[in-house]
């Protein structure tokens, strides 16, 4: 594990029809366009004409988080990042509220990530592209969570 401060520019070298969405059970080679309610998948729009900094900005938080955990691993031992990752995963696993009702409350996650005293654009535009009218419907979410 290395100390990266610049996020990876994740240009995929190969894509297939299920790279940009979950496969449909009835047609495993394609994205489920009835569920996503976005119409047929336009892969060209997801690959071409992207801003050069988009991947960097999208991966920024995750990269900084990983580097911080790697720093703690070096200084305090492997237990430190493992404990912190465990706590975040516990919160993700136990905090459930359907996206159609607003999604899970971010209080626990904010406290763990030390963001409870700050307000950023992510707190105004919660959830990115998967919010507002583009929410996953309740059944899909529940199926995913329970593992059906």
């Amino acid at each position, binding site marked *: 594990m*290395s*100390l*990266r*401060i610049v996020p990876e520019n994740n240009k995929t070298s190969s894509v297939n029809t299920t790279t940009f969405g979950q496969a449909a059970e009835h047609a495993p080679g394609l994205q489920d366009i009835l569920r996503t309610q976005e119409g047929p998948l336009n892969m060209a729009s997801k690959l071409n004409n992207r801003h050069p900094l988009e991947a960097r900005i999208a991966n920024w938080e995750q990269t900084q988080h990983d*580097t911080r955990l790697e*720093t703690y691993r070096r*200084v305090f031992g492997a237990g430190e990042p493992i404990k912190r990752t465990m706590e975040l995963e516990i919160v993700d696993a136990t905090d459930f509220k359907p996206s159609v009702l607003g999604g899970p409350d971010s209080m626990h996650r904010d406290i763990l990530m030390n963001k409870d005293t700050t307000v950023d654009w992510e707190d105004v535009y919660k959830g990115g592209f998967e919010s507002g009218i583009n929410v996953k419907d309740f059944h899909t979410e529940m199926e995913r969570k329970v593992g059906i």
Partner: protein
Amino acid sequence: MNGISVDINHLKKGEVNLGTSIMAVKFKDGVILGADSRTTTGSYIANRVTDKLTQIHDTIYCCRSGSAADTQAVADMVKYYLQIYASQLPFDEKPTTEVAANVFQEICYNNKDNLSAGIICAGYDSKNKGSVYSIPIGGSIHKQDYAIAGSGSTFIYGWCNENFKQEMEQDECVAFIKTALSEAIKWDGSSGGLIRMVILTEKGVERKVFYPEDYQK
């Protein structure tokens, strides 16, 4: 192929450049770091009184050259790392310059495709006394008695080699750095302004500034 080709576009578009002259010298009681104070964006001098000597820990400093943004980000990261590292050391123990320099090296090497940062890390610790480490672009690490870097350093290699002495006194070392940087500033267009120095010894930190009227001959 005639001659040596130099890539002058190595900075990303629009970036602020620390075209510079920096050096660090080990002397009898510790180390002294020195730098000019000019930051340029192309031919515009964005800051004529820049402080390129950044504190990493109590008696560990670094000189920055290359892209201003990159070096600030890396220096912040190393400072953060050293704070955490120092917090778990026994009460009266301080981090060594070697640790700081190696963290610099690791970050510069692992991010080498996206960074243009040339750094000299120098400091005083009670175990090793003064030490100077040079981390050029690419992320290699070199422990030296004195190090020079930046665009202005190319003009003073010969003079420094002839005039450096081991175990100099503090005044001798200040004069050595002042003359060296004054020559570098004289010949290099991207270096200028003040000469800033930081003296790191057992007593702590002392900062010095020399104005053009003091060092120009």
